[in-house]
């Protein structure tokens, strides 16, 4: 708008108008300066159509990406919840309908693995939580009860990049479940096992999808330069 005001002052000086009065009517179109500007308007009208169309398309594409990532994030939550629901409804119970001590312990241990997986997964995808993947971050989580000292020791000595640490608690979820089936803490029939494996692999696919979406998007380098330029 400031640029436009400066241009208006320049236009008024070029057409011998007073810069101190506000003209209610458009300038005389027969003036050479205004006639030249009218020709620019023809090009501008063409660009208006193109800009509106491309911008609408661009916003639509970007919103689709945002929506896909959001849906995938919710799917990860849903799959974790579904896995825990399957376990909670298929563990062995006492005669009075309550969980056995082993069942309670098993559900708590798997629940803890799901919490750890979810936190480490998002830490690997966002700068905001990336410090949680560092040795200091992991030790801090252990001190707050998010993992056992044994789990911390395993994660610190693991021979995989920090961005993939979430793979460990994901596997622990299924390993502990298989162990519970062997110990008769969880129903070990084929149908239950099949349903659990399906939910487990769906979880894996859902979280891998988020990484694919983020890594496949358009780069923002130019956008950053423009924002920097505007701020300066």
């Amino acid at each position: 708008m400031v640029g436009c005001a400066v241009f208006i002052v320049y236009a008024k000086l070029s057409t011998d108008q007073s810069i101190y009065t506000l003209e209610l009517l458009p300038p005389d179109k027969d003036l050479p300066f205004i006639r030249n500007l009218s020709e620019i308007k023809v090009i501008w009208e063409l660009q208006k159509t193109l800009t509106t169309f491309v911008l609408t398309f661009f916003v639509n594409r970007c919103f689709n990406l945002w929506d896909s990532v959001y849906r995938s994030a919710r799917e990860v939550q849903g799959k974790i919840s579904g896995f825990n629901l399957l376990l909670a409804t298929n563990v062995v119970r006492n005669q009075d309908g309550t969980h056995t001590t082993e069942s309670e312990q098993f559900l708590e241990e798997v629940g803890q693995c799901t919490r750890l997986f979810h936190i480490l997964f998002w830490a690997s995808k966002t700068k905001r939580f990336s410090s949680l993947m560092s040795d200091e971050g992991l030790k801090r989580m252990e001190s707050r009860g998010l993992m056992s000292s044994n789990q911390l020791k395993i994660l610190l000595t693991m021979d995989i990049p920090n961005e993939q640490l979430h793979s460990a608690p994901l596997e622990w979820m299924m390993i502990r479940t298989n162990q519970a089936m062997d110990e008769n803490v969880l129903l070990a029939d084929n149908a239950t096992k099949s349903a659990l494996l399906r939910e487990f692999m769906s979880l894996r696919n859902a979280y891998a999808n988020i990484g694919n979406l983020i890594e496949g998007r358009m780069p923002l380098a130019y956008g950053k330069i423009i924002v920097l330029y505007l701020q300066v």
Partner: protein
Amino acid sequence: MRSHGEAPCLVQFVQILVDSFVVVSPLALYPSLGDYSVVGVGLITLFFTGVNSLAKIFLDPLNNSAIYENSIYFDLGVMIREANGDSTKWRKAGKISPFT
């Protein structure tokens, strides 16, 4: 899913398109609007650059690029807390079965 990354130059192209459109607008609007072209240019700048900024915010759903402060990224803290709650919800809900 690949379709989201099919046009790596689109961000730059749209930015250049919008910027040139907005920059030229004072010249194009002055012959028909006169002094009031300031208002017209203001509205065009607001809506076109605003929609372009919105698109770039959508393009960075986790706010890793931090292009804009206070942009619409997911509040992952809430999502993590929801999942934490879900991890104990089913155990607590099914703690006692009425079917003995």
